[in-house]
């Protein structure tokens, strides 16, 4: 799909991605990236990838709990971003868009995984084959997620886990979470409060056993 560069109607050229050093990208604000996109969309996209690839990857990893799935999701998010004509439009909430696309893709993967697991269980076959293939990163994640509060999060619903992840792992503001989940700010406030109260209950039950 061709895209305008912002100034003219030149289609966005392919195969010119030159990822800039991460340190340079980290210091660039979203507004600056949008500003750069009006002159050089390719460079703006490079900066965007550098700035958000870690966070998008880890966001996908926290939801899917599978490093390879997370890798594919993060790739898809940025490829889709590359083809998204509004990505650098003034007023377009790029960060929220990236997290929203990522969250939706992860939900689909988790849902499909549960469905496939359910089918195999009904057929009387072990669904162990659908478990994640452990890489070194999966092993680290499993270890860290198997203890403390992160482990207690397993007892929460996927929706509650996602909103806690967006807030406390991905460090998004309340307004950004509202944009990602496409809900009102008040809804974000209540949706964040309930799982935290529940989390305390889960941890207390664990201590009592």
């Amino acid at each position, binding site marked *: 799909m061709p895209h305008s560069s912002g100034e003219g109607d030149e289609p966005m050229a392919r195969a010119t991605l030159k990822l800039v050093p991460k340190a340079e990208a980290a210091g660039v604000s979203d507004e600056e990236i949008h500003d750069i996109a009006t002159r050089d969309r390719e460079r703006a996209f490079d900066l965007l990838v550098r700035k958000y690839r870690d966070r998008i990857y880890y966001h996908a990893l926290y939801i899917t709990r599978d490093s390879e799935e997370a890798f594919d999701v993060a790739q898809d998010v940025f490829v*889709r971003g590359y083809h998204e004509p509004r990505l650098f439009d003034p007023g377009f909430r790029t960060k929220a868009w990236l997290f929203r696309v990522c969250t939706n893709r992860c939900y689909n993967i988790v849902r499909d995984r549960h469905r496939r697991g359910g089918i195999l269980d009904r057929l009387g076959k072990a669904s162990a084959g659908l478990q994640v293939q452990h890489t070194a990163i999966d092993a680290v994640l499993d270890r860290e997620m198997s203890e403390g509060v992160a482990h207690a999060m397993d007892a929460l619903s996927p929706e509650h886990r996602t909103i806690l992840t967006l807030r406390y792992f991905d460090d998004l503001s309340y307004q950004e979470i509202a944009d990602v989940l496409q809900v009102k700010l008040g809804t974000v*406030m209540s949706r964040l409060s309930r799982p935290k*109260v529940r989390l305390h209950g889960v941890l207390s039950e664990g201590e009592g056993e």
Partner: protein
Amino acid sequence: MNCWRVQNLVAPFLDGELPDAECEAVGAHIEVCAECLAVIESVEALPPLTAPRAPQELEAALFDRFDACLKERLAAGIDPGIDAPTGVGAAVAGLARREVRVPMVAAAAWLGVMVMLAGGVALNHTKVQDLEDSVARREAIIQALQERVAVADARSDDGTDPPGRAMAPVFLPPSAPSALGAALPPRRGLYSQPGIVGASVRQASYDAPRVVR
């Protein structure tokens, strides 16, 4: 502010994200509600939620692979099939990807019902039109016949028409009931002359009144 509301605002209250007015209202509530105070204290006492991260060397290798793979995909122009079309295309693509929450079965059923409704409305409209046309034709026939009968009634016994009301033949449309002539009340002798104006025209009359089909 009630307990339910306060417990829905625990997180923003502790994160300092509440507007001043609501923050004060929560503060005022927990001064008098031990239960809500206990909930807030318990949430505040939760260990911090920290994001698990892979060791740096693993991360470096991972993101090198990520960059190379992304470059390759963009260079090849590979579209993951999740490009965002708009309008009907978006709906169809969304259904195909199961990103649209409406199950396909429900969507198909809805579409079927809508098609049946539209067909029913169109059929009904056609039938109503036909009926209206038929009623209009019959009314025209009845009116013409009534005029003829009125003229016949006014005719004098010697058979002369009243002044200014000479009988003229009434031409009925082909759709008029074929038994119309026979249905007319016999008065001065009914006769009929079929085919006086071509094969499709029939004259039915008693005395001077003539009804021609």
